[in-house]
């Protein structure tokens, strides 16, 4: 009621302000007239009565003003006045406004863009019941990404011993596949097989039909059923209720019968990989490692820490039964999953985005310091104006509010332009994300990473307010703290106190410090990237083209495929510009591959973990990996006993310093084939990196692809000319030989390498950009302050020169100031830079932190641009004409 009255009063005030003023006028004159009439009644003449009435009333204007203040929304009225005045001031100084708005736009835009991505990736709550209690279980080998996959037995051990979860249940696999059906265009979507309690325990409701329950899991493959997402139902079936009972085919699996549609808005457990089709899992006892994905709900009151401690013990118990020492290095992880489960994308991006968020945070701080400096300088030139306002009765609080309104206006304008920047930046970021391996072929949905939601709006709003206040606080306090008397005296130059001057210099030093940290961390990341790029790969990366084939639906037998692939390689060899061609199971830097344990035959106690690849003849010639001893595979090997080629590290680990050629090597626990197999070593090759650039070349055993009866889906072509020049010829030849085998993608080795270091590239490129920006801002800040100082000291400089100071003395005086500020910045920035380095090193394991070059180079850069920025004001100071300067004023 009272609030309603207030609102009404605000509304009347704002909408009918002129009317309200007129009514106030009328009310007061009514009063005066009534009073005058009464006075006349007591015998005064009309004129005198009116006069007396007015005197008795007091100052009409004063009371009118007080009435206005008492009206609701008066603050809004003055705020609106402040805004209009502020806008006028900004329009009057277009240069200043443009620089300030652009600076802020870069700071706010960069923060908004990075935060939008982080928010979309990590902070979006899943549309499920009690997301806060929801966790996922992952296993992790040292130095590898974590993966949600366990064995059936481990699941049983953990389930029976578990005291921390209210439910521990089988989740959903995350695959993508081509979905076909009657009258349906084939489409590649994310799909998954789910445990019987998946929907029930997540609290997913039904939009039509029924959802998968425990009874469906036992039905096995006899009559497999499927549930589709609401959006699939909408886009593919137009919400047709007759969808129940229809058949769907995913890839080449048996047809699934649709039994229901999940509730609207449910997309599975990751919004970058929204699932459209689910079917019951066929998991059961005897299921090995990696296939059982587990989710859980914490019991109320149980912390995730407790759960980790309890479950790790159970997990060790479950894994301890395994014979393989490799398995025992595995650790259990339990992570909150209410904002989505761990995906390749989130694993790839969480570290770089965290680092970049910290970087843009520093950049924003720098932006604030920069703008505060600009505003201070401008405030100094507006002292006269502020003094006049104070003399006319403006309260301190009003002046403070007026100046703060102006800086908030600036940051709002910066925000508007910044959002525009952020929109493009977020989309550009996503394009880089999408080029990452494991991600580029999947039908990823990146909308969440570019669409702001309430979190983003709040975040941006908060930083706008924060920057406005940070930039404006000190200039506003200074403007309102003025002693108007002295400021208005003619002929006085308004000086700054020593403390005020120190504050301005401190701001510049702060900018130097922050940009030192930004530039040196950029140097660190760039150094790391170039270290990765220039690391010795063990093969030649240029002029190498990779073609990935999809054999899944070829319809050919394995023998025919093998024969056709050999024919293909021969015909590829004949293309002009091609040096040699080969194929293999995996290509280096693809990011995955078989692995197992290798040992010299009859010496299983000295086994070494090794990577395994299946390669065709000419593999080493094509990749450019040198033979150190022995020979390559040849067509003749197919009939003989199994042969292998090993790399130097594998040879050293298994055979020590002895010559491995002719010796026998045994592989066990191989990813692709179970059981042990022994090979005669026929060749020794140089070490080559395999999975990634970060790790050193692993011990590797190469087996003969043709001898093992496998087909290789990775073609590699070494060219003499630009690899793109032969791509068309390769496409044609492939189409002619392998008619039913589609090409998934063609890319150069360099592109494949780049796709394996997306996070590192992202950090290096963006931190460089931010470093440059930071240095530029610091230079502008330094220049601004010195230019302002020189202008203010013109008179003093004139006196000095008149008394005999030379131009160079004056110049040295200004430059000395600059050098001091830069050095103070170093003193503050060096610890910051070292601290940042430590944090970065904790996030990126093999960052070259011992290298002190980045910080030295950064310091050099800062000195150089500092002097450059100081040069112009210094020259201006040097050219001051004493006669002109002294006559002035």
């Amino acid at each position, binding site marked *: *009621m009272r609030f*309603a*009255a207030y609102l009404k009063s605000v509304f009347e005030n704002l909408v009918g302000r002129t009317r309200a003023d007129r*009514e106030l006028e009328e*009310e007061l004159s009514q009063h005066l007239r009534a*009073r005058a009439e009464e006075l006349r009644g007591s015998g005064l003449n009309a004129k005198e009565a009116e006069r007396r009435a007015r005197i008795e009333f*007091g*100052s009409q204007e004063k*009371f009118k003003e007080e009435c206005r203040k*008492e009206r609701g929304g008066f603050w809004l009225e003055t705020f609106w006045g402040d805004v209009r005045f502020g806008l006028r001031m900004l329009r009057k100084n277009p240069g200043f406004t443009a620089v300030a708005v652009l600076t802020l736009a870069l700071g706010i835009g960069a923060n908004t863009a990075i935060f939008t991505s982080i928010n979309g990736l990590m902070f979006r709550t899943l549309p499920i019941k009690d997301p806060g209690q929801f966790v996922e279980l992952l296993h992790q080998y040292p130095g590898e990404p974590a993966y949600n996959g366990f064995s059936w037995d481990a699941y049983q051990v953990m389930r029976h011993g578990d005291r921390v979860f209210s439910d521990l249940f089988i989740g959903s696999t995350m695959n993508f596949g081509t979905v076909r059906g009657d009258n349906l265009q084939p489409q590649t979507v994310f799909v998954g097989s789910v445990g019987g309690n998946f929907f029930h325990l997540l609290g997913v409701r039904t939009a039509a039909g029924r959802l998968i329950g425990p009874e469906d899991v036992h039905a096995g493959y006899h009559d497999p059923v499927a549930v589709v997402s609401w959006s699939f139902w909408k886009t593919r079936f137009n919400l047709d209720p007759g969808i129940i009972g229809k058949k769907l085919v995913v890839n080449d699996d048996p047809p699934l019968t649709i039994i229901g549609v999940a509730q609207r808005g449910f997309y599975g457990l990751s919004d970058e990989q929204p699932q459209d089709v689910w079917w019951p899992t066929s998991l059961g006892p005897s299921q090995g490692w990696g296939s059982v994905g587990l989710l859980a709900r914490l019991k109320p009151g149980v912390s995730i820490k407790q759960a980790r401690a309890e479950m790790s013990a159970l997990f060790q118990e479950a894994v301890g039964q395994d014979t393989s020492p490799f398995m025992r290095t595995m650790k259990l992880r339990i992570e909150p999953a209410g904002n989505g489960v761990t995906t390749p994308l989130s694993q790839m991006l969480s570290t770089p985005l965290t680092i970049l968020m910290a970087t843009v945070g520093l950049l924003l701080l720098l932006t604030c310091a920069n703008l505060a400096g600009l505003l201070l300088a401008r405030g100094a030139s507006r002292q006269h104006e502020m003094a006049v306002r104070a003399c006319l009765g403006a309260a301190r609080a009003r002046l403070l509010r007026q100046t703060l309104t102006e800086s908030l206006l600036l940051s709002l304008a910066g925000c508007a332009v910044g959002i525009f920047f952020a929109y493009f930046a977020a989309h550009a970021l996503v394009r880089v994300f999408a080029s990452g391996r494991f991600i580029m072929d999947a039908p990823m949905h990146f909308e969440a990473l570019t669409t702001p939601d309430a979190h983003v709006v709040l975040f941006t709003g908060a930083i706008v307010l924060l920057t406005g206040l940070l930039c404006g606080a000190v200039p506003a306090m200074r403007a309102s703290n003025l002693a108007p008397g002295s400021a208005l005296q003619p002929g006085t130059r308004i000086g700054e106190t020593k403390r005020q001057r120190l504050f301005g210099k401190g701001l510049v030093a702060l900018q130097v410090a922050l940009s030192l940290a930004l530039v040196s961390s950029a140097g660190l990341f760039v150094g790391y990237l170039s270290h990765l790029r220039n690391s010795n790969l063990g093969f030649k990366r240029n002029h190498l083209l990779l073609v990935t084939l999809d054999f899944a639906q070829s319809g050919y037998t394995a023998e025919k495929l093998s024969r056709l692939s050999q024919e293909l390689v021969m015909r590829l060899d004949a293309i002009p510009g091609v040096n040699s061609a080969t194929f293999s199971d995996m290509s280096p830097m693809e990011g995955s591959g078989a692995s197992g344990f290798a040992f010299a035959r009859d010496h299983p106690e000295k086994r070494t973990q090794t990577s395994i690849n299946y390669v065709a003849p000419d593999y080493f010639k094509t990749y450019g990996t040198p033979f150190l001893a022995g020979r390559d595979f040849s067509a003749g090997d197919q009939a003989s006993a199994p042969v292998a080629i090993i790399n130097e590290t594998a040879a050293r680990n298994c055979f020590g310093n002895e010559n491995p050629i002719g010796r026998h090597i045994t592989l066990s626990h191989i990813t692709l084939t179970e059981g042990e197999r022994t090979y005669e070593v026929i060749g020794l090759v140089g070490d080559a990196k395999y999975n990634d650039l970060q790790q050193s070349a692993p011990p590797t055993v190469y087996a003969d692809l043709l001898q093992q009866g496998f087909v290789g889906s990775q073609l590699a072509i070494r060219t003499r000319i630009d690899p793109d020049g032969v791509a068309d010829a390769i496409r044609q030849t492939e189409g002619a030989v392998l008619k039913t085998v589609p090409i998934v993608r063609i890319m150069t080795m360099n592109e494949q390498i780049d796709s394996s270091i997306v996070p590192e590239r992202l950090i290096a490129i963006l931190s460089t950009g931010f470093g440059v920006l930071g240095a530029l801002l610091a230079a502008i800040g330094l220049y601004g302050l010195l230019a302002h100082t020189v202008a203010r000291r013109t008179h003093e400089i004139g006196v000095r020169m008149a008394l005999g100071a030379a131009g160079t003395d004056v110049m040295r005086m200004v430059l000395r100031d600059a050098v001091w500020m830069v050095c103070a910045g170093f003193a503050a920035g060096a610890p910051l830079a070292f601290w940042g380095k430590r944090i970065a090193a904790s996030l990126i394991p093999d960052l070259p932190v011992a290298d002190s070059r980045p910080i030295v180079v950064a310091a050099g850069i800062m000195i150089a641009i500092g002097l450059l920025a100081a040069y112009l004001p210094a020259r201006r100071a040097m050219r001051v004409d004493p006669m002109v300067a002294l006559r002035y004023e």
Partner: protein
Amino acid sequence: MGEQAQLLPGTLDLLILKAVSLGPRHGYGVLLRIEQISGKALLVEQGALYPALFRLVRQGLLKASWGTSENNRRAKFYELTAAGKKRLKQEEADWKRLVAAMTSVLGAEPEEA
């Protein structure tokens, strides 16, 4: 003017509420009413009346509407709202308590030594 008392700070609002509670009044009418019922003992600065009236309207204690005055002129009339009535009752009670307390304090006799 010697026998006129200055208003204590904060009492103007209470006076206005009381004056208006006796029937809707326009601004000048409120002033007259206060003078009349106080037997001209209380002096209200004329101009200060209006900011107070505006404040009470904003607080939702008074309601203002335009009507016709006794001599047929357009005038703004103030009346109490429900919240205003409640506030008046409470302030009256508070005031009485204060006066009683002040009176007993001021009426205290020096203790015999």
